[in-house]
């Protein structure tokens, strides 16, 4: 098991650092977060189910979750406004159905986007990469990225029925 973990960390260390640093650009914060991620991976590896997704998928999700949590803790320490969090109480059946429907609609709307726009959207809102990072990696300017994100947003709002979705 330890060997498996070592192999996973060897293989995906670059990807892990990439995902975490997109959300936590400061070196110290990123290193702290990566240490937490390695601990979570060690704890979670015995329960990992390959049916639910690849190793890369699982590790990416753990990295993202850990980095967002780490950022929230930082924001609280620095006294910034809390970002909205999910309610602790489990949603009722009606709410669950509504959430599933919304998720399906959002998924369909995302699938309708061209590949490049969809990837940009995920970079921005899933991997939480900054506009500067997006611009550099896409070989364009920040203004061009903002323009593209604005157009994607408008498309999705039209698909999903305006702001009230």
């Amino acid at each position: 098991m330890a060997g498996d973990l070592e192999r996973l960390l060897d293989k995906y260390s670059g990807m892990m650092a990439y995902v975490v640093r997109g959300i936590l650009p400061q070196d110290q914060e990123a290193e702290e977060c990566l240490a937490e991620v390695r601990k979570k991976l060690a704890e979670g590896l015995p329960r990992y189910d390959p049916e639910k997704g690849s190793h890369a998928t699982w590790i990416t999700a753990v990295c993202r979750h850990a980095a967002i949590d780490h950022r929230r803790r930082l924001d609280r320490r620095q006294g910034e406004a809390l970002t909205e969090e999910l309610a602790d109480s489990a949603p009722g059946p009606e709410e669950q159905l509504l959430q599933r429907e919304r998720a399906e609609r959002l998924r369909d709307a995302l699938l309708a986007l061209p590949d490049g726009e969809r990837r940009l959207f995920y970079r921005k809102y899933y991997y939480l990469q900054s506009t500067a990072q997006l611009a550099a990696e896409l070989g364009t300017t920040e203004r061009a990225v903002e323009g593209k994100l604005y157009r994607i947003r408008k498309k999705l709002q039209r698909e999903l029925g305006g702001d009230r979705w």
Partner: protein
Amino acid sequence: MVREQTWEQEMERRLAGLPPESVGEGPEGFTPWETAVSRILWGLVLTTFRLEVLYLQYLLPLVGTVELYLGFRSLRRENRWFFGCWVLTGISLILRIVGTAGQGTWLWSRLSGCPAAFWTVAALSLALELLRLLLLRQGLRRAFPGGDGSRPRDWLAPGIAAWLGVAALAAWGTAEPVPAGGSWVAYGRLFLALGLFIAFFLLLRRQLLALSLRGYQVTVSPVRLSSGGVWCLSLGLTLALLLPALLWGARPPSPHGEKAAPLSAAAAESRENLLALGLPAELADLLSEEDLIRCAGAEGAAQTNNPQPNHQALSPRAEIGGGLLEGSTWVVALPGGTVRFFHFFRWLEMPRLRLQEGFQVEPDNAVSLAEDFSGQLRWRQGEEWLTAPLEIRLAGGQEAEALSEFDRWWYESELAHLGRLQWEPYAAFSLPAGGEEVGGYLAYTLQGSRTGSTVNGGVHYYHQSRPLYPYADMGRWLAGRGGMGDLFASAPYDRLMFQNGVWPQADG
């Protein structure tokens, strides 16, 4: 702004439950280098493969070079090999833009028609491409170490070998379009080149796949000009250079005119004699001093006419390119039984465009080999009359050994009578800028005549009526008899064709 922030927070929350895999995007696809390397690989494909249809052979390499530039621009700070690629691609982008526009000019055509210049440029271009491929390979191997420090699998080395194979076959195909072994070698060469190109493409793709889960530490450089801006600049510059190239660069230099000198006494006497024999004054004015002296003692002069009603479209006047052109043929009987043919043309109204003109004559092949060729242009520049000799070149004249079996059979009687095919003199020139009332002629001598018989052969005047891309040399086309597969055969030109009709009687 608040609404926007709420929307963004909501998106972040919702996407937590919709990881990339739920929409078919694996995490391996999100890397710092994906866009840059994809651009580079597509750029390599587009600049290597040549598709000779719908002007794609010009457009795709330009598109490919811009993609290469954009790709290397992002990676220029990662290592010195990528920086070198970026510099080389910047240079090749400028050369590509200039070359794309330049192919609409006569100068480019002259350069490509000069083997030394052509092969030098081709060799430098290939060397540049090869150097860039080698730098790219080195850059990839340095920038994408694995977690254990290993380098990615090297698919680019065999890819470069395939590319060299394609380049070698292309060079062979250019140097020897139909090899000595016949057409099966040509087909084999084509299929081999296609196979190597496909191998090149597949190896490039494999190299991209081999970079998966690597290179997350690659440094991508921020840019000041968006990729759209680079596209607009590249295409805009190409168009800005292309327009003047087509309108002004597609016009070969006009002949240098000199003020028409007064005729010598002998030439003046000969001119008077020709006028007395019936040659119109406006045509006699076109003749050079030398041709007037050749015609000294002329015994007769007559215009050939077009008696056969089944010879269509043989009007001596035609509206061409917004102008009015007139043509005529005169035969002058000289002492000693020789005849001198004069094929005249005159622009009664000048055409809209002055790009390329061609004047080609097919002398009668039943008398003797045409010889002693000459010609002149004459025009009015302001208040002055200027003249310039027409540069006469010869097409035709092949001996039997140089002909195919079919052609030897087709031209059997001509070969038997003349010993070779009849010469076909032609001149390719441009109308003088600002010149009015432009006229000219092409002349040659035949030993003997065929009084009362139909004149074999024809006269053709070609006027390029609109810009052509790429530039096609009228002279080169006329030299090759303008076969159906020739580029200029589909070029926009007007033609005045006037057929020699009947050999005049001996007394004109």
